[in-house]
């Protein structure tokens, strides 16, 4: 990373790159965007195929409680990774477990879990506020490129590697298990295993992306590039690739733009606004093209 930052700094000094690249945090943020973008875009297509948009949103919101728990248990307020990871994973797995054992409609169940997680987070924040400056939490809620460290990049890199390797072997089976569980079962696939594996992937990528996109908005980045790609593509292969490309572009442009234009906007918000503008363009294209 040091070499990369040095090269970027020299490039900025020589005038080949914008002045923003002379800042180490900016290089960190762009590397993070390049890592997390393709992953969020790719997983987002499965979120759409499995109709789990509301679920991924709920996991993002649960991060608030996870962070509060982490801080209360003594983790550093700028990086309460253990509390965040443990709470989000338990939240997601418990939600899926209850879903498989009750007849309550899934969206209702997610709504209940989301409300409980948010209420718990709000209650705990009162105690957290006594320990830390509450404004620090804004970074976690809405993302902050200033706070990305080498350790965050390491966590992000490991998470991305795990998920990409997992997806290469399981993408087809996760998709088949959601489209036609009976056919998947007859073929001998353990559909419950693939369901839980996917839930764990979503949770892992959500946690990994919290620093750059923010807990509140990470669900949107799982959803919007996929929704845009769905309007523009004709098969699953191009659907996944375009969604990954759009998510990566959104992350890169959303990170760079506020710096270049000197706008005081959190990185998460600008990334989502860029992604949403792609969606708007695609929607207009479909309407004007008469193919909606």
């Amino acid at each position, binding site marked *: 990373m040091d070499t990369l930052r040095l090269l970027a700094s020299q490039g900025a000094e020589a005038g080949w790159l914008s002045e923003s690249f002379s800042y180490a945090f900016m290089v960190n943020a762009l590397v993070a965007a390049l890592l997390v973008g393709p992953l969020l875009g*790719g997983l987002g297509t499965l979120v*759409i*195929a499995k109709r789990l948009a509301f679920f991924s949103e709920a996991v993002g919101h649960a991060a608030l409680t996870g962070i509060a728990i982490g801080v209360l248990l003594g983790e550093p307020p700028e990086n309460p990774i253990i509390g965040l990871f443990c709470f989000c994973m338990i939240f997601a797995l418990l939600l899926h477990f209850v879903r498989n054992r009750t007849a309550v409609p899934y969206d209702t169940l997610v709504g209940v879990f989301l409300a409980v997680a948010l209420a718990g987070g709000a209650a705990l924040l009162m105690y957290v506020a006594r320990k830390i400056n509450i404004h620090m939490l804004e970074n976690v809620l809405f993302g902050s490129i200033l706070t990305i460290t080498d350790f965050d990049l390491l966590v992000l890199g490991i998470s991305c590697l795990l998920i990409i390797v997992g*997806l*290469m*072997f399981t*993408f*087809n*089976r996760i*998709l*088949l298990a959601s*489209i*036609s569980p*009976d*056919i998947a*079962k*007859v*073929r001998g696939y353990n559909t419950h295993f693939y369901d839980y594996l996917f839930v764990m992937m979503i949770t892992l990528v959500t946690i990994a992306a919290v620093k750059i996109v923010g807990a509140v908005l990470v669900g949107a980045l799982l959803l919007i590039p996929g929704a845009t790609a*769905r309007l523009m*593509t*004709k*098969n*699953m*292969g*191009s*659907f*996944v*690739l375009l969604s990954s490309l759009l998510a990566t572009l959104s992350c890169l442009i959303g990170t760079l733009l506020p710096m270049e234009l000197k706008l005081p906007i959190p990185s998460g918000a600008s990334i989502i606004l860029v992604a949403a503008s792609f969606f708007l363009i695609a929607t207009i294209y479909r309407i004007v093209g008469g193919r909606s």
Partner: protein
Amino acid sequence: MGPSISLNDVGLRYENNIVLQDISVSLDAGKCHVIMGPNGGGKTSLLRSILGLTPFKGEINVNWTDSKGKIGYVPQKATFEPSLPLTVLDFILLNQSRSPLFFNFNKKHKVKALAQLARLGMADRAMFRMGQLSGGEQQRVLFAQALLDNPDLLILDEPTNGMDDQGVRYFESLISDLVKEQKTILVVHHDISAVRRLEATVHVVNGVLIESGDASEVLQTNKIEQLFNHYRSTPVSDVVNDSTVNSEVA
């Protein structure tokens, strides 16, 4: 050679609704068996029990001659969202290969998938979205999926639903070819005249097993009305599901 299947005292209930009880029958290997009966008679539940998709009481044994063979399954219906860009070719590849759809550059996989679709007359629809197909076309694709691994046991739940005459005739000739290859075929079918054309053993189910035998014996004109009564004339006793039952398919 396909397997024989033996069912012994098979029963199934959903909460207070008794769906099947005391079903005991042997399905010979390498033959076509058609399950018929009125709506709500438990035909699909019986198939799902044999496949291990539903917990049941009793015993179901799938007796393979050598090692456990392949099973092909066509469900009664599958719901495909029209806006999802899942093409017919994607769906076949999904069932055929582990290479992720976004990273599948293996031409052999695509050639094999297209050949399978051509067999069912669907090659020219390969790039259509699954959700855009008619019900009959979707059934053809599901049938193509079931035949992918050259299965020894083929289980089909109303496979000709929504199919046109040409599709139905093709289905019948394919079943005939598969029986010649000594595959075991189990079909839920509701079209009496179509079943008469198949060389099949018919099992009429309406909660209990009403009658089993050759199509020509079971489907005699004077017996049809009695066999396919929607209501159940036989009183049913309590049946409790037992998911610990031995089934080699499950």
